[in-house]
């Protein structure tokens, strides 16, 4: 596969991630006010 074609295919897979990310975060909906990644780690360390 040429470099251009392989880059295109990667871009396609990344577009798929775009679709999956919306679905992933939609599942998180019931958790209001999601903490940032840092806040989440701090809370986890504290507990």
């Amino acid at each position, binding site marked *: *596969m040429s470099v251009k*074609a*392989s880059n*295109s*295919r*990667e*871009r*396609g*897979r*990344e*577009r*798929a*991630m*775009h*679709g*999956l*990310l*919306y*679905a*992933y*975060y939609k*599942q*998180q909906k019931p958790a209001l006010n*999601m903490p*940032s*990644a*840092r806040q989440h780690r701090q809370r986890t360390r504290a507990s």
Partner: protein
Amino acid sequence: MSETRQAERRQLSEAMVSRHAGMLQSYLTALLGSPLLAEDLVQDVFVRVIQKLDTFDPEKGCFPVWLRTIARNMAFNSMRAKKREVLIDAQELAGIEDVFNAMDEIDEAEVWDQKVAVLRDCMSSLSDPMSDTCRLFYFNKKKTAEIAESLCVTQALVLKRLERARGCLRTCMEDKLQLEHVS
């Protein structure tokens, strides 16, 4: 059509929608770039699929693939009718199909939400800035200009972080889904 047949068809249609709506929403979002455009189309796709249900031949391929073929054609036709183009080449389309075909194969999860949960482990591979940017974009539905302002960075950096996040997730998901890395 007899009443029994109608009731059976209705039951089958409801089961189909319940099982595949999430997948279809994600697929059309990947194709069109926008979850809102995808949402508009999902219902129309299911109406068409129910009309064409008798034409599905399981020997020619599996149901989710057939469903996505109909969805893809309707998406392109819909954009054409609005005089808009779906900017995608054959290899990009193949890339999207790679991921969704692999998701179909996840045996341990029958429901789409369970399949998407596979992404959870990959999310931990993202750096804090990427993770925060994704959360603001995908969960809080902020525009990139708003994210830039709230994080005190440039809009270009926000776009770059989102692009890098999708790249990291792609690599991780390729391993999880046992997809051959493209080189």
